[in-house]
């Protein structure tokens, strides 16, 4: 036990004395989240939008005035035809178009089913969803005002269309995505590098020729990074709740539990990499290219999995981050309980077991 404790303390010396790496490890998630956070809150003011109003009646004028008086939108009055609007989308001049159906007021009053179409440029999904949300809430507001006055249920149907990125990957994906990426970076890359470093230094020879069991060596390499990962999780969650205003709908304990499961998976992957490489450079490249890339490309973090070719969809199943992101979204955003994520938990648990099994088989007791 004392061996383990001393070894872990040694690892902490390594980590804490390398200030630069430590700052990157602890600062990176914060910086990354803040960048996402500010991108979301800043750019949605005074966005250029177009309005296509064929019916030109009282109701449409009221809606337009309401849109215009909000601080979110600037209506580009020069755009008056659907062709012009389409062109403006392509040029990127506008981010949103509000299209009223013909005879809007008439429909509203008589058939009780007036249609407004919101078309957003979803190349920037965060912005698109925010704009659509703003616009539809303004329309709803108008609708409820109308109902207050008339005591009659008028309904406006807002139909949304996302151009270019119909999946609408929004702000809420960035937090789970950053979590998945940072944890993988720290747990997998740093663990594998720190084990391989001992091989490069020649100290691994001594460790092998000592009564210290290989499992102990591994365990003491893993624990410090496990703790650093927990610190990161805390800072990410605090930031996302208090700075980005993204509430945790489900149980925070469940969220932490699945995160720990994911960290264990990432750590065992790190051990696996360290058994396969002899140089720090190779360990880093494998972690970065072999893991970070799939996390970004195939986990559903940046690109919707549903839109991928079948082969990539199949491959995405072996990316642990995919399952983790699903779990975080389920718990954090949708507020689901364990019953909703048991399948994903089992998958990650199974992956961890496989990685560990292979590592133990591959771990060399000799050089």
């Amino acid at each position: 036990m004392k061996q383990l404790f001393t070894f872990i303390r040694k690892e902490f010396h390594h980590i804490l004395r390398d200030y630069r790496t430590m700052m990157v490890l602890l600062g990176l998630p914060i910086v990354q989240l803040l960048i996402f956070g500010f991108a979301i809150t800043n750019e949605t003011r005074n966005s250029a939008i177009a309005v296509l109003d064929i019916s030109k009646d009282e109701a449409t004028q009221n809606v337009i005035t309401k849109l215009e008086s909000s601080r979110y939108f600037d209506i580009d009055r020069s755009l008056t035809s659907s062709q012009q609007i389409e062109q403006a989308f392509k040029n990127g001049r506008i981010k949103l178009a509000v299209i009223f159906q013909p005879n809007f007021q008439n429909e509203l009053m008589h058939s009780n089913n007036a249609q407004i179409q919101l078309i957003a440029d979803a190349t920037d999904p965060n912005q698109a969803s925010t704009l659509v949300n703003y616009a539809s809430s303004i329309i709803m507001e108008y609708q409820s005002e109308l109902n207050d006055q008339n005591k009659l249920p008028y309904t406006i149907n807002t139909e949304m269309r996302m151009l270019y990125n119909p999946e609408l990957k929004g702000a809420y994906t960035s937090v789970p995505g950053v979590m998945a990426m940072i944890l993988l970076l720290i747990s997998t890359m740093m663990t594998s590098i720190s084990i391989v470093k001992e091989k490069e230094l020649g100290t691994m020879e001594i460790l092998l020729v000592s009564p210290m069991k290989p499992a102990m060596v591994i365990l003491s390499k893993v624990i410090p990074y496990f703790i650093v990962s927990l610190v990161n999780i805390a800072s990410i969650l605090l930031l996302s709740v208090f700075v980005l205003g993204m509430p945790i709908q489900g149980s925070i304990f469940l969220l932490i539990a699945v995160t720990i499961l994911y960290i264990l998976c990432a750590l065992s992957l790190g051990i696996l990499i360290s058994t396969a490489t002899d140089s720090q450079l190779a360990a880093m490249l494998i972690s970065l290219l072999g893991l970070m890339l799939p996390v970004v490309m195939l986990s559903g973090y940046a690109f919707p999995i549903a839109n991928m070719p079948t082969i990539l969809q199949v491959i995405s199943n072996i990316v642990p981050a995919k399952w983790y992101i699903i779990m975080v979204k389920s718990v954090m955003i949708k507020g689901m309980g364990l019953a909703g994520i048991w399948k994903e938990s089992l998958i990650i648990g199974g992956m961890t077991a496989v990685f560990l099994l292979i590592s133990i088989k591959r771990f060399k007791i000799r050089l």
Partner: protein
Amino acid sequence: MQEKEVLYMKAVELENIVKTYSAKKSTVVAVNDVSFSVNEGEVFGLIGPDGAGKTSIFRILTTLLLADKGIANVLGYDVVKEWKTIRSIVGYMPGKFSLYQDLTVEENLEFFATIFNTTIQENYDLVADIYKQLEPFKTRRAGKLSGGMKQKLALSCALIHKPKILFLDEPTTGVDPVSRKEFWEMLKRLKTMGISIVVSTSYMDEAKLCDRIALMQNGQIMKIDRPQTIVDEFGKNLYAVNSANMFRLLTDLRAYPQTESCFAFGDKHHLTMKEDNPKMLNDYLTNAGHNDFNISKIEPGIEDCFMQLMKI
């Protein structure tokens, strides 16, 4: 009864050890049919240049590497079957060994003590001599120590768990003569405490500090014996020749028809002759125009013997 058996046991025994490494195209025979044994309490030296196979032998003995052929024992334990036991009783200082550069002197020693299930205090008397010299710098990071100091710390780390046998792979490479001298003095003291030591070096002058040595080249042992015996078996008269112009002397000596071998040795040239006749050489050099020269018969060193063996 068993106690007695242990006492008369060989510290190390190797029999017909072969180790090959296969690279892309070619296979390299690193250790080629090597057999030797080390007595308990002995300082045994593996002497040879880089690539002679010394490191492979150390790794086989410390159970880090499996030999292709042959058997090896350390303190009676088989290196393949009883590797766990061997690992707990040997002290090993690998050639590439660097300590943890970002840990201090004290932290390094403490760390190695702990992973060997002991404490600095418990075996302090063993490392006291060496560690005393390091104590003034104990809060300094190992990366900031000089070569000599690093070696001393590494030795302390290898010793801290009171091993019965020490394996030191090129402990003095790149270390200055003063630190080297001090290092060997430490080994001598360790020997008096009954620790068997197997040490390798590429510095031939260190050979005479061992009880017995194996001269190695290209994975093979050329000769094993006490240094003095090896010197006695040189079998030729060796002459040291010097003159005012050493470079010209060397070319002239090499051109001398009776020269068997001639090598520069510091401020003298060492020479063996086919027909042992210093007087004839004297005449030859006088004729060649060397005036201030001097020929004297000397006792060969291990380096002379090594070079003689290399030629065969």
